[in-house]
């Protein structure tokens, strides 16, 4: 045991250098003000946090959670049936189908978002097709609609995968038993399949919501500054506005809110008996 424990040392060092120290630095900056390059000039202050409470920034935080929430919901509405279809597909074609939905994540995230930019831009592919068909132009980019689209597109596989995994593990005879006992397809879905797939839904929501709420690439590229999200705001504070204290405070607030959401999600998961553990 002792010797095996030593193997973890490099990992511990890695964690301290790249996770713990930066976290404390962020925490430190969030509670101070002054010239960041001059340690002597730094003094305790809550101004970073006070600034977060200004209505304009509260709106950004609210927008971020709203957009992330909507995109998570859309992913769930699209992803669940897709996961069900894949899970019910003949084993021969199942992997092919699954790969089709996963292939996009093999490509670089930025590249995919740029691709959407050129598709959606005012003179982009989509609008040229619409013009050619004699239809009015679609002006969703830059704007919230395009950001939403980008989020759903980018994060959909992360909703499908965990739900698919859970659904494909449900013993077919359990579903047959529900039919056998008089449950039609709707009843069987609502009372058996849906409750048994809650763990997949919970991890799907977590895996979509978390990156969606903190993204700045999608909103930056597709929102064009029209719909800044908390991620954009943080990026701005560190790279252009140079207000590290405000940026740090925003980061801490975002982190706390994410931790709270995760706690809520894991509670929902635990309130269900852990069918995952059961091996058949």
């Amino acid at each position, binding site marked *: 045991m002792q010797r095996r424990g030593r193997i973890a040392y490099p990992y511990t060092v890695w964690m301290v250098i790249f996770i713990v120290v930066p976290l404390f630095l962020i925490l430190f900056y969030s509670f101070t003000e002054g010239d960041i390059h001059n340690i002597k000039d730094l003094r305790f202050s809550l101004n970073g946090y006070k600034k977060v409470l200004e209505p304009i920034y509260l709106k950004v935080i609210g927008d971020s959670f709203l957009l992330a929430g909507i995109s998570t919901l859309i992913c769930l509405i699209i992803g669940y049936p897709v996961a069900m279809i894949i899970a019910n597909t003949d084993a021969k074609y199942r992997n092919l189908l699954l790969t089709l939905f996963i292939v996009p994540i093999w490509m670089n995230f930025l590249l995919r978002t740029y691709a959407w930019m050129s598709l959606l831009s005012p003179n982009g592919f989509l609008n040229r097709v619409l013009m050619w068909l004699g239809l009015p132009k679609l002006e969703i980019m830059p704007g919230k609609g395009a950001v939403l689209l980008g989020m759903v597109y980018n994060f959909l596989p992360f909703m499908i995968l965990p739900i698919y995994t859970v659904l494909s593990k449900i*013993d077919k*005879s*359990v579903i*047959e*038993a*529900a*039919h*056998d*006992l*008089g*449950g*039609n397809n709707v*009843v069987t879905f609502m*009372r*058996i399949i849906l*409750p*048994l797939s809650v763990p997949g839904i919970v991890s799907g929501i977590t895996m979509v919501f978390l990156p969606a709420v903190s993204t700045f690439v999608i909103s930056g590229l597709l929102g064009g500054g029209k719909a800044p999200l908390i991620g954009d705001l943080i990026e701005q504070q560190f790279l252009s506005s140079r207000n590290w204290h405000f940026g740090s405070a925003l980061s801490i607030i975002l982190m706390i809110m994410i931790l709270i959401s995760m706690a809520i999600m894991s509670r929902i998961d635990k309130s*269900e*008996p852990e*069918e995952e*553990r*059961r091996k*058949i």
Partner: protein
Amino acid sequence: MSKPLIELRNLTKRYNNTTAVDGINLTIKENEFVTLLGPSGCGKTTTLRMIGGFEDPDEGEILFEGKLLNNVPAYKRNVNTVFQRYALFTHMNVYENVAFGLRVKKIPNSEIDRRVKKMLKMVDLEGFENRNVDSLSGGQQQRVAIARALVNEPKVLLLDEPLGALDLKLRKEMQIELLDMQRSLGITFIYVTHDQEEALTMSDTVVVMNKGVIQQVGTPEDIYNEPINRFVAGFIGESNIIEGVMLEDYKVSFDGMVFDCVDKGFAPNEPVDIVIRPEDIRIVVNPEEGMIKGRVTSVVFKGVHYEMIIESDTREYLVQRTKMFPEGSIVGMNVQPADIQVMKRGSTPCNEEEG
């Protein structure tokens, strides 16, 4: 007994190129305990699943009380199933598992409560209402599965190797309990198993299947004492299967000797298969007093009897006797005419080889 409840007519099921069930005909009566018996892959489970509504037949008809059942979905059939691995709802407790079928049918809560409690009492699971099904032992899960099916008061209960996962002692206990339930509730049981002893113990009627074809239908006694062919004789119990020739009615010849028997109706000199059960061969100490002479080559103690292999000039006989004859001794063997079971050769489209 009573009137027919389920009729299978020319029922056939194919998977890709293999025929799992090949045109079977069977009538199941009310209150009957019918066992479908056969090796794995013989089509017994597929037949059961077609009755339950989980597989669609490719050909043929299933009649239930005279009405065609083929296109009735599983959830509308007055039939319930106990699945091989129980298939309990792991996100519900014992009570809700049993209540599921009644809740779906929108039965008032008070009646659900009454029926669930009564059923749990019957399967000896009182006080387990709020337990998670995962926390139960295999035998208890089995009881929940049975209660969950029987609470719906079906006309027919389908059981797919329900005792397969239990240990021997528990299996014997459950066999008796299931029989008691079947008798007291007056429900038709269709029971699938590969265990010939289980089939003989429990059934009113045994249906022996092989390669998707019914080999023989009969009472356990019929099946054991008068197997219709080599496959049934070999599958049910241990036996000596010998090739011979039916000379005339009541006279059969094998190993160069002529024996009296009780069978008739064969063509003169028709080649036949003969079954002699190991317990039906009597041994006499003086070899000259026996019809067949042989030397004991192996003796194994089996508890209730000794199992001996006795080698004659032409073959080895498997013999079970309570009295032991030492290895190497020369003995005589006698068989009563009634214990010689003569079977038509190749009377059904089956072949003997099969795992």
